[in-house]
């Protein structure tokens, strides 16, 4: 009986671990829909025209990263493309995206919704 209990317990643990949702799935979906067509699925970008997201310096300044996504970029030095603004993203979508970017391409630091909302409110026109 004791063995059976142990077996059920192990099955329960395996099941629980297996069912744990990927915390970055929603951010990955936003990335796929909004970013991957330019920055590529692997974040590698396109030469000097579209910057790589791998270990991009923007991860050192999350406010700048947030504002770049929300407001876009114009007149990037020595680049012929400007990034469009993704101001239609809700704060939750933005937080999911930023955490996915940080996890997938950056230093894997994670941010709370309040942090991201604060970064966003600091963006100037």
């Amino acid at each position: 009986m004791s063995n059976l209990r142990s077996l059920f317990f192990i099955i329960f643990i395996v099941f629980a671990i297996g069912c744990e949702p990927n915390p970055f799935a929603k951010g990955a979906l936003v990335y796929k829909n909004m970013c991957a067509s330019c920055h590529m699925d692997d974040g590698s970008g396109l030469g000097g025209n579209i910057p790589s997201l791998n270990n991009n310096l923007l991860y050192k300044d999350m406010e700048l990263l947030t504002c770049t996504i929300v407001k876009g970029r114009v007149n990037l030095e020595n680049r012929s493309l400007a990034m469009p603004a993704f101001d239609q993203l809700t704060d939750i979508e933005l937080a999911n995206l930023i955490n996915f970017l940080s996890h997938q391409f950056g230093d894997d630091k994670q941010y709370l919704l309040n942090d991201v909302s604060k970064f966003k409110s600091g963006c100037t026109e």
Partner: protein
Amino acid sequence: MKYFTLIGLIIFLASCKEDKTLPILGNTAQEDGKTIYHHVRDWSYLRQDSVVVTNDSLKPYIYITDFFFTSCPSICPKVTKEMLKVYDAYKNDDRVKLVSFTIDPKRDTPEKLKTYAANLQVDQSKWWFLQGEKDFTYELASDYFIVAFEDAESPGGFDHSGKIILVDQKGQIRSFSEGTDPETTPKLIADIQKLLDEQP
């Protein structure tokens, strides 16, 4: 009986041998008893170095081509990424050129195309970026079996297909890949070699 089996086997193996010649794609017509194959119409465009080039300028070469615009927020970057793979595969082969036509000539000036090419860090004598008259470009695109047109509803204001086309010295279409599907690029790269192998 053994001989018949052997001959049958040889015929079977011979018929299974891969055809080394690429087909000429598109409709054909008959003229004075001759078969006329589909080919691209004559064209004249401004290259990224502001030099006028024509289809005749490409006659010594086979070339890979696509239609794009630099501010494209949808499929173009992925297509260009695949063009880059083709470029890398044949960058040292002087018989091959790459040609990208802009479908947004108003914004994509030769100067802008030059910057775009420089940012890709490619040899600009090998990969040409061309600007020309907009409506003519849309008609020309159809010769390459590509759809391109202005559409305010589409991302960036233009709708177009992302095919990458292989063209021979006669302006005939010999193969293509889907620029948005990286899995089709290796076959295109192999087809370029097949076309090169056809050369006398």
